[in-house]
């Protein structure tokens, strides 16, 4: 094995000034948690960097898992050597020899972080490069457009040699920027919006509105599956609130304002989300709105709907195109579940021509004509079921009858 360590570069958290130490400690904790399946690893934290000694663990599966950890801007498989010339030269040669192609161009890039190292950067570039050239006759130097960039990073206690820089997920460590609630419908957009909010360091509690029996249990299972997928990125149990929305929805439908029903529903949903957010200590509501995508996402609709919320509404997808959103959904692994054909509560009672520019005064007037609405909203919040989900198969508490343990036993 040529590479014995992984060098992890932390992303935006390095611009964090005084809070930096706290962020780095949190990052280390989350990386360790994400890699808990690999007991052979040891973790080393230094200024703005994390190193993982692979020990006897294989690189590829560790790297695969690292790609999903928020707060990592990039990482590299590295070879660690003693910080002295001969060891660095041998290490550099070993790294170059690990490449399968026989003919390639390369350049050396030395970063001399330990200023006490006897040779300066220019001299080191030459000393290392010459050693590789002498020993590998088919390798040539190309400083402008090399196939391989051979990096040498010299620190006081060790030097590191590497060629590959793997992009990480970026963002901030999960939860390091506070907590928000997020609306999770089961469609393609909302899981992507939640993932983007999570990547920005927001801890998320998801809220799903169901209209059983108008929506099926499968629709709910689908949302649970999506939440489990998102919990993989959270690295800790992920909360899903299931709000019974049937009564409100049927009551709103009775006002016979077909073209405004979606507007009315969304306003009630935001009111419920706000109350759940207050209970959870969350300071924002994340939605999957993308400007102009459907009638409820025109600027006019966003205005009339958004006014119900005092908390900031975060809309990570607002300026994205549908195709970009789909590509992201595929990348984060939620697409296949999202396209399962179960109706959610917004696709029920959908009028032929929903309002694209609802009138705020009319909407408020309709709502005033339902004096029991605040009470119904409070009741929905009260009857909300909360699940904690983790990536594997278990969910607590499970709403369906045979206990999971028993069911597992059957197989």
């Amino acid at each position, binding site marked *: 094995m040529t590479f014995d360590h992984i060098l992890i570069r932390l992303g935006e958290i390095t611009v964090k000034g005084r809070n930096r130490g706290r962020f780095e400690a949190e990052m280390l904790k989350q990386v360790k948690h994400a890699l808990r399946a690999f007991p052979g690893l040891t973790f080393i934290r230094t200024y703005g960097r994390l190193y993982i000694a692979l020990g006897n663990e294989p690189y590829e599966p560790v790297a695969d898992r690292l790609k999903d950890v928020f707060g990592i801007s990039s990482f590299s498989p590295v070879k660690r050597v003693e910080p002295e010339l001969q060891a660095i030269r041998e290490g550099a040669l070993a790294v170059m020899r690990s490449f399968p192609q026989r003919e390639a161009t390369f350049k050396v890039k030395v970063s001399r972080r330990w200023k006490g190292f006897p040779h300066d950067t220019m001299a080191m570039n030459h000393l290392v490069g010459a050693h590789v050239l002498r020993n590998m006759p088919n390798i040539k130097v190309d400083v402008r457009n090399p196939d391989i960039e051979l990096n040498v990073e010299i620190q006081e206690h060790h030097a590191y040699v590497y060629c590959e820089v793997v992009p990480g997920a970026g963002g901030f460590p999960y939860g390091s920027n506070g907590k928000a609630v997020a609306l999770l419908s089961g469609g393609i957009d909302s899981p992507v919006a939640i993932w983007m909010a999570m990547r920005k360091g927001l801890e998320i509690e998801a809220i799903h509105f169901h209209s059983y029996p108008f929506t099926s249990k499968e629709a709910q299972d689908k949302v649970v599956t999506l939440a489990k997928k998102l919990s993989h990125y959270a690295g800790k149990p992920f909360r899903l609130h299931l709000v019974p929305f049937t009564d409100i929805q049927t009551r709103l439908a009775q006002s016979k304002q077909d073209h405004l029903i979606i507007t009315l529903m969304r306003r009630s949903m935001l009111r419920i989300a706000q109350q759940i957010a207050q209970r959870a200590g969350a300071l924002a509501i994340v939605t999957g709105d993308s400007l102009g995508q459907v009638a409820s996402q025109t600027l006019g609709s966003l205005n009339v709907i958004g006014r119900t919320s005092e908390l900031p509404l975060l809309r990570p997808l607002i300026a994205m195109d549908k195709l970009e959103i789909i590509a992201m959904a595929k990348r984060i692994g939620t697409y296949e579940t999202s396209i399962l054909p179960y109706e959610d509560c917004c696709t029920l009672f959908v009028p032929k021509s929903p309002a694209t520019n609802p009138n705020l005064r009319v909407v408020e007037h309709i709502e005033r004509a339902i004096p029991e609405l605040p009470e119904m909203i409070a009741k929905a919040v009260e009857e909300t079921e909360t699940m904690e989900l983790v990536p594997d198969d278990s969910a607590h508490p499970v709403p*369906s009858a045979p206990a999971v343990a028993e069911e597992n*036993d*059957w*197989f």
Partner: protein
Amino acid sequence: MSMQSMLYFDHSASSPPKAEVIRTVSEVMERIYANPSSLHQGGAEARKLLERAREQAGRLLDTDPSEWLFTSGGTESNNLAIFGAVRRYRNRGRHLIVSSVEHPSVAEPFRALEREGFRVTVLPVGPTGHVDPADVEAALTDETILVSVMHVNNEVGAVQPIAEIGKLLKDRPRTLLHVDGVQSVGKLPAPIREWGVDLFTISAHKFGGPRGAGWLYVRSGVELEPLVRGGGQEGGLRSGTENVPAIVGAAKALRLAIESQPEREERMRRLRRRLAEGVAAMPGVVLSGPREDDPRAPMAPHIVHFCCPGLKPEVIVHSLEELGVFVSTKSACSSKDDKPSAVLLAMGRDAACAASGIRISLGDEHDEAAVDALLERLEAVLRKLTPLRRKEERH
């Protein structure tokens, strides 16, 4: 004498269900009685179990869950594979290839298709019951739409060269390969995907699962014409309310069988060697298949087969039964008739030999002591019966 006190050596006919499987079947039967097609929560629970059972098959055999159909067992899976594929792809050609040592649930569908006008090439086998891949190659034509060769022969235990046959068909996407894996699952590795198999049959009761449950693997992209039409269950390929308890029990049995396959194979090979050596040493006995392990004629680890020319096999079966041992003549399905075994005739045995076959098949409960007890009783039976052998057939 009760079944429990018998030495049971007929696992290839049917195996004792495992205690965990019985528990699963009974609990699921009690609790999950709703129809998986029902919309209510009861139906959803039943449906969920079916999909878990499907995922389990997919995972254990390194295939996609969507490639597995639940059936009532080996016979149905074989019929669906053969008739289903041939009727779907009859426009591609009218030629079929099948080995001469298949189970009746494969052989008979091919005979029926021959009567319908398809041209069928029946592959010969060598003296140990093995198909020669060169014969498959020679038989292939541009008209060939289906080749069916079993993995392990149910009578003598010959392991057929599926990997080689799969290779021959690799560049022939229009020729499908069906493999009857009823006797092999849990005893030998079955790398279905690696082999390039298009259709693969499994029966649950051969490895401790419930009767009336089996699978057909249908490689993604292969289409079948259904045999049983109705409510459209199993993607329309096998209508009829799913037998949820049996399917879940079968999934459990499959996991137990496949997870312990390597150690089972090793243990059974050891026992088989002991058994084959013991049987071969007895007078008037002709062992089917090689006496030593021979890589050119691989045999399944759990089957020993031999002939006692001049003796009626049912007399041996009943005599052993009196001593507390259950074995089989030919395969259980055809053991009631008196005719010589088609498999043994195909292997070139004479009529006297082919009409006197005995099959011993091993299970997880057997150990050296059980094998020795069987050998001792078999020897006693043969000693008693040998003087009664029919003269004209005495060697």
